[in-house]
């Protein structure tokens, strides 16, 4: 048989009862105690009132003012833009209330490690430059050197890999920039903070990221020795700087100016042509 509840035990059991986490037997004992103790009954009422009042309508009055339909549409558009721009996923399996390790290592560092690993693997397969199988007197044996590629061919293959990586990097950079500009001029999200303006927080952030990437890969782009690419990247950089320096909400006029510049310089068309050409060359190589 269940022992009757005293006032202290009843008070401790009340919150669990409220959240339906009290065993049925204890619940019955608590009910019996409340029926016989006006002081605990009054405490129970106070608890119920306090916790019942903790509802979203009372605690978050501003929630009712939000245009949730608009918020949902803007969220969906932002997500699709991020996916189209190839933004990395950083939240696949987050630990409980912790950050996933991938966010600790910048994307650029991960790419650099990958590129280095590919290069080392190729060099190991083809033979390390300058290293040759030697005969007993230290002179490279003719049979051994005949089976290994020459220094020149190793250098050539390294240059080819470098060139291919640079092309891929440039293509990705240009494609991402094109998606960003397209989204900015064709479907900007309405700003929640100011009527008639456009929320470009995401585009600003993306522009900054692209500028950082451009600085990081500048040496690689130079290896392509392509004047057209250098010109295009230069013009793109100036546009990205403009976007990055705007406020979180841009006026229709500012968006219009950007659109005019993009059209005037035919940036989108040039990126399109260039990336196709790059992709073809990468496949040929």
């Amino acid at each position, binding site marked *: 048989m269940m022992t009757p509840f005293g006032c202290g035990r009843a008070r401790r059991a009340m919150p669990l009862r409220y959240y339906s986490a009290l065993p049925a037997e204890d619940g019955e004992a608590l009910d019996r105690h409340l029926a016989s103790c006006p002081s605990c009954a009054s405490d129970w009422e*106070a608890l119920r009132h306090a916790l*019942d009042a*903790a509802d979203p309508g009372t605690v978050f009055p501003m929630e009712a003012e939000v245009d949730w339909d608009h918020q949902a549409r803007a969220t969906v558009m932002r997500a699709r833009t991020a996916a189209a721009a190839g933004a990395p996923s950083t*939240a696949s399996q987050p630990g409980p209330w912790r950050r996933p390790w991938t966010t600790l290592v910048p994307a650029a560092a991960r790419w650099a490690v990958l590129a280095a690993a590919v290069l080392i693997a190729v060099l190991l397969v083809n033979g390390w430059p300058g290293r040759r199988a030697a005969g007993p007197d230290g002179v490279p044996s003719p049979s051994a050197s005949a089976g290994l590629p020459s220094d020149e061919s190793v250098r050539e293959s390294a240059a080819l890999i470098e060139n291919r990586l640079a092309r891929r990097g440039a293509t990705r950079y240009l494609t991402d920039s094109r998606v960003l500009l397209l989204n900015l001029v064709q479907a900007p999200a309405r700003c929640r903070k100011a009527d008639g303006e456009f929320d470009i*927080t995401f585009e600003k952030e993306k522009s900054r990221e692209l500028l950082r990437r451009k600085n990081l890969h500048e040496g690689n782009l130079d290896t392509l020795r392509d004047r057209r690419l250098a010109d295009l990247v230069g013009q793109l950089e100036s546009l990205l700087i403009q976007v990055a320096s705007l406020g979180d909400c841009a006026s229709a006029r500012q968006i219009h100016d950007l659109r005019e510049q993009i059209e005037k310089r035919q940036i989108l068309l040039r990126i399109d042509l260039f990336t196709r050409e790059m992709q073809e060359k990468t496949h040929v190589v």
Partner: protein
Amino acid sequence: MEQDDFALMDDVKHDREGAFEALVRRYQKRLYRLAFGYLRNHEDSLDAVQEAMVKIYLARGAYRPTAHPFTWAARILANHCIDLLRHRRSRPTESLDAPQGEGEDRAPRHLVSQDEPQQARQERRELGRVLKRAIFSLPANQREIFMLRHFGEMRLEEIASARGCALGTVKSSLHRAAAAIRDYLGACDPPIKYPAREGEAR
């Protein structure tokens, strides 16, 4: 009939039309309230929800149905909010404990009913303010669990799974949080007046 959350998440994973939008609509309000528990600012919370939903969309392929989709989403949001708070601490622009903007506690325009007496409206607003203060005075762990239960509408088992802790821990935290809120409200002078509620308590 509304689709089950797991089925909806499966549709999102397979890029079925309209699925992601349906998920956003279903979760955004609950996530907003959780974000508010961390950020204590209306606009920041809306932005955080949007950014967390973008992360969810990008990571949709990696979702495994071992956890409830909302539990998974709440974890992503919590991580995001914790990052924002770290960022704020490293570049402080305002105190985390500073009172909220003037407009935060005002009654929403279209909720101000002409039928509701002025006094009742003021009492309700005051109750909201006191409750918010009571909730934010809780230790971080208790506050998070309380917010997940009351505003994330999560069951105790789901909270335990989301936070990676034992069910008993959730129960004891909630117990302490509820008692602290009752005591906080009970100590208010003048005493808090609660609005009349229909039906039985949960």
